[in-house]
């Protein structure tokens, strides 16, 4: 009779190189110039951010790149208390706010950190504006987040 289970630990490590595609490439180039780019659907006119080629509603081609305003409205938010490390949540010392932001003229919401505001002061509908790294490199971190106007 076996009363003890024996385990073999089998780590798997895969490395993937994912091409971002031309639309995200435009987006990242835009970030370098401190611009937020979206794409517009030639079929139904929807604008999404980050830009992509296929419309998630009408399936039209979203072939027009549009520069979006850097001010918008906070439409949803959460406070993040954790970060993931090797598949486990570790508690953060300083929780931060993540928001879903509606930029004017854009039909999709942009997720971003919301800075310079305490969670208890966050209000849905509040106006926010983008803040940037001083020196941008064409990386997602160039757009640091949004702050209340």
């Amino acid at each position: 009779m076996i009363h003890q289970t024996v385990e073999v630990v089998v780590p798997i490590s895969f490395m993937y190189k994912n091409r971002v595609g031309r639309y995200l490439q435009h987006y990242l180039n835009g970030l370098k110039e401190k611009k937020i780019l979206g794409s517009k659907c030639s079929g139904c006119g929807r604008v999404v951010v980050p830009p992509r080629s296929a419309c998630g509603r009408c399936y039209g081609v979203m072939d027009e790149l549009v520069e979006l305003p850097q001010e918008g409205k906070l439409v949803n938010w959460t406070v993040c208390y954790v970060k993931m490390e090797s598949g486990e949540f570790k508690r953060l010392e300083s929780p931060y706010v993540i928001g879903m932001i509606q930029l004017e003229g854009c039909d999709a919401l942009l997720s971003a950190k919301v800075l310079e505001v305490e969670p208890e002061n966050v209000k849905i509908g509040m106006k926010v504006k983008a803040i940037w790294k001083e020196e941008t490199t064409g990386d997602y971190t160039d757009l640091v987040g949004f702050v209340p106007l």
Partner: protein
Amino acid sequence: MKRRVAIVGYKLIKNTKASVWTRERIYYELSRALLEELEITRDKVDTFIFGSNDFADGRTISECYLIQRIGAHMKDESKVEQEALNACVYAWMRIQSGEYDTAMIGMVSLASSQFKPLLVQNHVLDPVYERPRGLINYYSAAAFQARAYMERFKNFTESHIARYAEKGYRNALKNQYSLQVIPPSLEKIENSEPIYLPIRELEVAPYADGGGVVLLASEEKAKKLTKKPVWIDGFASIEDTYWIGERDLVKLDGLREAGKRAYKMAGIKNPEKEISFAEIQTFFASEEPIIAEALGLFDEGSGAEVIEKGLSEINGKLPVNPSGGSFGGNPMGGTSLLGLINAVKQLRGEADDFQVKNPKRALVHAQDGVCAQQNTVMILSTGGEK
């Protein structure tokens, strides 16, 4: 003309934090037990369908190892890389083809002891935008969804989310196949550690090792195999777009559409009246009212009232997750198969302490992806007039 298809038998293991049996052994024991109960050999099973996830299994084409354990060697076999309820849909289709009369479906997931579910979930995310940015994941998205519901229906508060979790734990204790944890008090749930507010630690369904097998059969075979067939009256499966910034997380258009189509197929006009109870798949307590409402089981925005008045309790007007649902343990990927089995138990009067009174029709729901991008809805019944 469509063939009628029934579920003729099931076997499951009790959810645990760490299964002593290997996944291979679980399949072997469950499949043999089911065949024995139905007094047939594996030769009488025409096709086998696994519900599985290669990432969770830690192997690609992961069923290749499990085939002889479930008894599928030298037989027809396939796999669905999605929630296990979809394996049931697949099996139904195979029987519908006329080429098969019986199909065994199986799903075993060792989500508590074998792998880290968070790691697997994180690999659902878009690899070139969401993953490197680290803002959107299952948890933050669920927080946005809960916040959107609270914003739309102002009488729904954080403490209502805790109450839905409390109901889940409480029902699960009545289900001997659940994790059998002592239900935390409402106060303890409300004060548990925040993860992504308004979502707290105890409002997330606990991961478990668990799984089961189910046998489906065509009408003529079903009647020979069991006195208590449970019929599949309708189902539908709908995918929405990936990006949560483009979806209404409260309205859940994809789920709504899946519900509408499943009701149509089952001939249901008024789900609120015609469905006896529902087993829906939630990872977070906050999802329950949102999913139930999108399915038309309760009025929109009634989440606070439903839990306050006990309308979705086991003895309520329309019980939701009488088994405790995933709050009795979430063997990721296989949770919807437990939902299916628990619904079959109810309809056969085998649900013991969590039995609802005289159920005629059940709704089973499964979801995949961030904020239920994919939804499958299935309607089961004891038969009656058709």
